[in-house]
């Protein structure tokens, strides 16, 4: 196994853990945590491909930088939503937040 496939495998596992977290855990904050893990798996892929890519392109790095910024924005908005939901339903458990009525 060469270095690139090691990193790709690592990022696959990371993505799998994140996906499992999103599908299995029912706390809204943990779902967001898992989403962050999946985003980071994608970032790792970008860096690994940038490292093993040809040419002087730094597009992979730039993409990761922007992705990190997006993740920060996503975390801020997502957690604000969780807090709003918590304030309304007194829980952050997604199975108990099951009404669509405003």
């Amino acid at each position, binding site marked *: 196994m*060469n270095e*690139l496939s090691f990193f790709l495998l690592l990022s696959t*596992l990371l993505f*799998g853990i994140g996906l499992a*977290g999103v599908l299995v*855990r029912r706390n809204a904050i943990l779902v967001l*945590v898992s989403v962050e893990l999946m985003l980071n798996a994608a970032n790792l892929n970008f860096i690994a491909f940038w490292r*093993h890519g040809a040419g002087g392109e730094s597009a992979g790095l730039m993409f990761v930088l922007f992705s990190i910024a997006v993740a920060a924005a996503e975390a801020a908005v997502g957690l604000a939503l969780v807090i709003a939901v918590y304030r309304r339903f007194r829980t952050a458990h997604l*199975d108990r937040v099951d009404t669509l009525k405003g």
Partner: protein
Amino acid sequence: MNGITLILGLVTLAGALASVALRNLVHCALGLMVAFAGLAGLYLSLGAQFVGLVQVLVYIGAVGIVFIFAILLTRGGGSESGSLFSTSWAVGGGIALAVTGVMAAALLQSPSLDRGSVRAAGPTVRQVGESLMADYVIPLEVMALLLTAAAIGAIIVAMPEKGDPGAPPQPPPG
């Protein structure tokens, strides 16, 4: 791939596993920090110095703290009561396992991963800055706009509304 990379990878995976599997939400958040730190180490070992340090600064310094504050604000500091997993956890776990398996299988069979060229070292900060300000200036500005909008949006969403039935009870006057 050397020993340090392997160790960092294992630390990252352990942190990620801890962050989705532990019962106490704060432990989950701390596990997530471990995963972030491991990823930052991996980036550094891949020669992406700038990105690795930005990862620490933004993820551990900002996103992680936001997660912790959210956990505390939703009273998740103690151990979670009731069922840890959703009712359909078997289905979800199965799907996740299947997706991971398919991706890993595809990855291990792929013939195009054996690239010879490995970059010696990452670009200097000057190069990163120049490409941010020249080639990627429009994405950068869009990102600035997005971050501003996200900050304002987060404040508005999390602000308690007047007369909100779910709002915490105001203390009686006097």
